[in-house]
């Protein structure tokens, strides 16, 4: 959601480690306040609060404390009850997939995939998104479709996956959709959960959209 409100990709990346990103002084003060409120017992040192006061008036500080408090509430609620990530934003998911295949770590991962494909394996499973309880997984695909048609894939622990169904594999449910590009299926995007019936129509629509977005990127890499 943040991008819709004008937060840049650089700023979003900087939020992983705000102290090493050149945020303007007012934003830096607000972020230090958020960190102090969120870690430990939520004690905010006097110097952090004094810095906050230099940039914001009292209604603004109250508003920011409410945002920080509310998201701590949301996060704790979700973490405690294992609420699954809502697949609401295919653009964001796709961006994560693309970044994972193009960043330094992702590149190494991808090189490994290419190497494995070179040994004659038809599919390689790459985990892109290990955080949280869902894993966004990309199945790299190489060569002509196996028998069974373009919507059927066969790969290691994934015994049979089809466009229209989730398949139980070793206790996991994998929703998997093909990524298509001009020349045909160039990859597969899968989201894995460990509960039966974990996916509904809206999840599938989102994952299909992700596959559509990343297909051109896969096409240039396989």
């Amino acid at each position, binding site marked *: *959601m*943040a991008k819709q*409100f*004008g*937060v840049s990709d650089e*700023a*979003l990346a900087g*939020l*992983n480690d*705000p102290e090493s990103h050149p945020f303007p002084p*007012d*934003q830096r003060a*607000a*972020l230090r306040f*958020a*960190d102090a*409120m*969120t*870690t430990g017992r939520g004690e905010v040192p006097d110097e952090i609060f004094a810095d906050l006061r230099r940039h*914001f*008036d009292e*209604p*603004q500080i109250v*508003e*920011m404390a*409410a*945002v*920080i408090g*509310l*998201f*701590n509430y*949301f*996060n*704790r*609620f*979700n*973490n*405690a*009850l*294992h*609420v*699954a*990530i*809502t*697949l*609401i934003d295919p653009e964001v998911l796709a961006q994560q997939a693309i970044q994972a295949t193009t960043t330094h770590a992702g590149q190494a991962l991808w090189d490994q995939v290419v190497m494995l494909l070179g040994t004659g394996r038809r599919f390689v499973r790459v985990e892109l998104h290990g*955080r*949280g*309880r869902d894993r966004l997984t990309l199945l790299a695909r190489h060569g002509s479709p196996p028998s069974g048609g373009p919507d059927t894939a066969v790969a290691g622990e994934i015994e049979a996956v089809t466009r229209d169904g989730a398949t139980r594999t070793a206790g996991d449910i994998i929703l998997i959709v093909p990524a298509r590009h001009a020349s045909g299926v160039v990859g597969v995007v899968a989201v894995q*959960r*460990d*509960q039966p019936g*974990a996916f509904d129509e*809206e999840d599938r629509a*989102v994952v299909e959209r992700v596959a559509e977005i990343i297909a051109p990127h896969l096409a240039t890499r396989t």
Partner: protein
Amino acid sequence: MARISRIARDRFTGEVRALFEKFLAERGNIPNMFRTMAHRPELTTTLTSHFRAVIGPGTVPIALKEMLAVRVSRINTCDY
């Protein structure tokens, strides 16, 4: 796996149903947290109202509030 079920779409009623239709129109989905919260409709409606008041237009730029929300969620290793 989720410890609490999320309420199926066809089980939303009354005020919660109206709220969720608004979510769908605005963002194309209903966050799982709110669907989980829907086990207690009163909490869903008041939480949604509070959430909109907190994150919506106020005295601090929405972009900064979004950044704070993202930062807090990253510290808590919760996807947002």
